[in-house]
Every structure is written in C-alpha cells, then in structure tokens.
C-alpha cells in the first residue's frame, strides 16, 4: 500500500468554507489534491447519514467545514 493516498470528502458550507475554497482557487493557492468537495447549502444540512455514506463509499476521511 505504498502508493496509497487518502481520499477525503469535504462537506463545505456554501457561505463559508466553500467561499474560502473558491477564494483559494482564485488566489491560485496550492492545497492537497486528496480533497473532494461537496457543497452543502449550510452546515446545518450536514447529517450523520452523509458521514457514514461517505465512509461506505470508500472515503478515508470526512471533513465538515462551516
């Protein structure tokens, strides 16, 4: 498993972290490529369902950011 790289699902709030991610992109900043972003309308939309669903689909980590 030496070439293993983590898969991380990031649930980002539309108004906060998604904006930050967007700004990071506009600013051409570099961040790890392991993150798959899912935009949610608000962190209040987050549910334990999503966390388990992500793990079940093979994610190695879940990051919730508001």
């Amino acid at each position, binding site marked *: 498993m030496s070439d293993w790289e983590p898969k991380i699902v990031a649930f980002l709030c539309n108004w906060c972290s998604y904006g*930050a991610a967007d700004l990071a992109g506009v600013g051409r900043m570099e961040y790890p490529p392991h993150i798959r972003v899912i935009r949610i309308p608000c962190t209040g939309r987050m549910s334990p369902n999503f966390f388990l669903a992500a793990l079940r689909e093979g994610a190695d980590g879940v990051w919730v950011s508001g």
Partner: protein
Amino acid sequence: MGIEPGRLQFSWISSAESTKFVTVAAQVTEAVRALGPNTRFIKPLAEVA
C-alpha cells in the same frame, strides 16, 4: 462505534479565509494519511459489485 478519532474533522472557516482553508486542508489530509486507509463501514468488494 470504533471509528478512529480523526476520520471525521470539523472546522470553521469564513469565506474570506482562503489561507486558513489551505492550512486546514493540509492538516486534515495529514491526519487522515497518518490513520491509513479506512477499513470500517466498507463492504467487501465482491458484494458491492
């Protein structure tokens, strides 16, 4: 439940904090990398197919 602490991370980043986003993204990646591949809550491949 037996899910390793660190598989699930929370943070609070405003839409103006792109630098914080980049740092936290790196931290999260490192934390998960340290834990290794997730084996919990995954069905054996044969059954999924």
